């Protein structure tokens, strides 16, 4: 589904990604781990099309198409979803209106009929229940005045509504207490399916106890320095990133 080849990216003239290679197939869950500043979030943002970053070399194929040539909204419509590390506030716009516009713009792009207000409420009711969210969430302005946990939960709710093919979770565990973490993980696990791939970006192994990955990659200094099965995460938990970083030659 996603093929990343020798991806280099920089921001403000500083190279952050220094040659990433990664292959993700439908149905797989991959975890990217790494110390702060290793480029994890940059990778997530570059895949979503954030223009703060310039891709200087390499390519990314998504379903065989050149992902880097697509605008951010085209990527979203093609099924790429990014759960933000820092979800953005939009005052005055209700969650309901925002999400219904998003769902319908994506449905429209896929040639599906738009959901009317009634259908939308019905579909969203079920998904909110799953995430332990109060229906009043829909009436509140997008992320405005939300607690850190509510924002993260709202990201997963949006993901559930948008039904992406490739979901990228950027540090979704940060700022969550253990109960919220479990709820969010349940929400993500409920979306695992043979047609969908999930890329989990995280600093800590904790989240991976609940969202168990098929593959774990360690990112350091803008490169994947080690890849393995889920056991690798546990090994990292024990030994830390220190040893891995030193193996990277400049």
């Amino acid at each position, binding site marked *: 589904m996603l093929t990343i080849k020798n991806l280099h990216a920089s921001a403000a003239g500083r190279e952050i990604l220094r040659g990433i290679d990664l292959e993700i197939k439908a149905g797989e869950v991959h975890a990217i781990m790494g110390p702060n500043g290793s480029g994890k979030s940059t990778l997530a943002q570059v895949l*979503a*099309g*954030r*223009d*703060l970053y310039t891709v200087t070399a390499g390519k990314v194929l998504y379903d065989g198409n050149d992902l880097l040539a697509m*605008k*951010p*909204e085209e*990527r*979203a*419509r093609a099924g790429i*979803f*990014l759960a*933000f590390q820092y*979800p*953005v*506030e*939009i*005052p*005055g*716009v209700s969650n309901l*209106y*925002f*999400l219904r*516009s*998003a769902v319908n*713009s*994506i449905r429209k*792009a896929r040639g599906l009929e738009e959901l009317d207000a009634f259908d939308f409420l019905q579909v969203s009711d079920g998904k909110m229940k799953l995430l332990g969210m109060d229906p009043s969430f829909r009436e509140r*302005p997008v992320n405005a005045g939300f607690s850190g946990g509510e924002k993260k939960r709202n990201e997963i709710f*949006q993901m559930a509504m*948008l039904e992406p093919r490739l979901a990228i979770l950027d540090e979704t565990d940060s700022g969550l207490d253990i109960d919220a973490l479990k709820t969010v993980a349940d929400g993500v696990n409920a979306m695992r399916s043979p047609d969908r791939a999930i890329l989990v970006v995280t600093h800590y192994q904790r989240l991976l106890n609940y969202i168990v990955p098929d593959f774990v990659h360690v990112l350091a200094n803008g490169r994947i320095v080690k890849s393995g099965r889920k056991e690798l995460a546990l090994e990292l938990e024990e030994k830390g990133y220190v040893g891995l970083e030193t193996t990277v030659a400049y």
Partner: protein
Amino acid sequence: MSTSANQIEVIANQEYKYGFVTDIEQETVPPGLNEDVIRLISAKKQEPEWLTEWRLNAYRHWLKMKDPKWATVEYPPIDFQSIVYYSAPKMKEGPKSLADVDPKLLETYEKLGIPLRERELLSGVAVDAVFDSISVATTFKDKLAKLGIIFGSFSEAVQEHPELVRKYLGSVVPATDNFYAGLNSAVFSDGSFCYVPKGVRCPMELSTYFRINAKSTGQFERTLIIADEGSHVSYLEGCTAPMRDENQLHAAVVELVAHDNAQIKYSTIQNWYPGDKNGKGGIYNFVTKRGKCLGVNSKISWTQVETGSAITWKYPSCILQGDNSVGEFYSVALTNNRQQADTGTKMIHIGKNTRSTIISKGISAGHGKNTYRGMVKILKGAEGARNYSQCDSLLIGDQCSAHTFPYLEVKNSAAQVEHEATTSKIGEDQIFYCQQRGLSTEDAVSMIVNGFARQVIKELPMEFAVEAQKLLGVSLEGSVG
């Protein structure tokens, strides 16, 4: 610059779509202003002598006044002798019915989306259409007349209801009030007049559509609305003008009077030509609007969506004279490119337990300059008066500016006054967030702006709320979903 900022700029530079000129034979007086021109205007309208004198007195007082300089707007001095003070499409004599209206005029309004042919009117809105200096058509007149509602052009009212005009003209905005109100009082040409009799609820929205067409012409309309005891009326005005290189002056006066238990809702969607992106041309919109809550329990509510004009200078205000009367001001002002707006309100609390609410939303994009200027004045006798003010500014890009000048004058210690203000910026992170959820940049900007303006838009009559949302969209970008 990053792509999304670029895209905002491209979108923001959309053209003004009402900029066409109607080629129609006009009757125009030569440019310039003196007592003879005023007498000529008055004579053309076959006005009674008292009104001619009223105009001349206003003119004589105006000569002693100076163009106000306190607003946060910049423009070169206006040459009042180069302006044409009267211009009217040539029309047949006799009673005005729609059949008599020049088809070219009907076509103009069709193009603007204002259907004047009653049979095509489904929305239940009565329209008075003002083209340059005169009213060219009023719809649904007969239907309204059956309820005793007088609605039509100001000139007609002068002929048919001189006693009402004489009683109320200048009673809220005196001819000596300010420079532009003085000028208007001397040369006003036409506008709308509405009287709603005791206990009548007007069954439809009343609306005036103002169109400036002729070159070098100023538009000086005068609107007077009187709601008698226990009556209700909702009124809307819309405005457009052709794209021209020179600046044109629009100096209107609107007076509202609400008697005991009466309510007036006055909504404006102002979309005069704003000038091009370098600030060439555009309308100077220097307007005095004021309502008087004369009776007990009366209510006057102003809602405005200001997206047009090169410069907007207006402060729709309420004099809360009757006990328990209520004044409201809801405003969205959008400035893009080189537009400047200095707008706000005055709430003058005189009666006991008077209440006022001010919600102002300023949006600045491009090099736009947006100022909120408001005054809340609570007089000594206004026992139990309350005011709530909220002024929010939204900035798009980093070349624009927003300013807030709230003035408070409280002479009664039992009064409650609250003021809140915020300034925020549309961030690239907000736009990216929306894009990541599948929305285009245009839809994202429009959604963020409409979210910001929502508190005001929801005060508009439903038909116009949709219009206003679209207009906010068009003024910044392509379309609103």
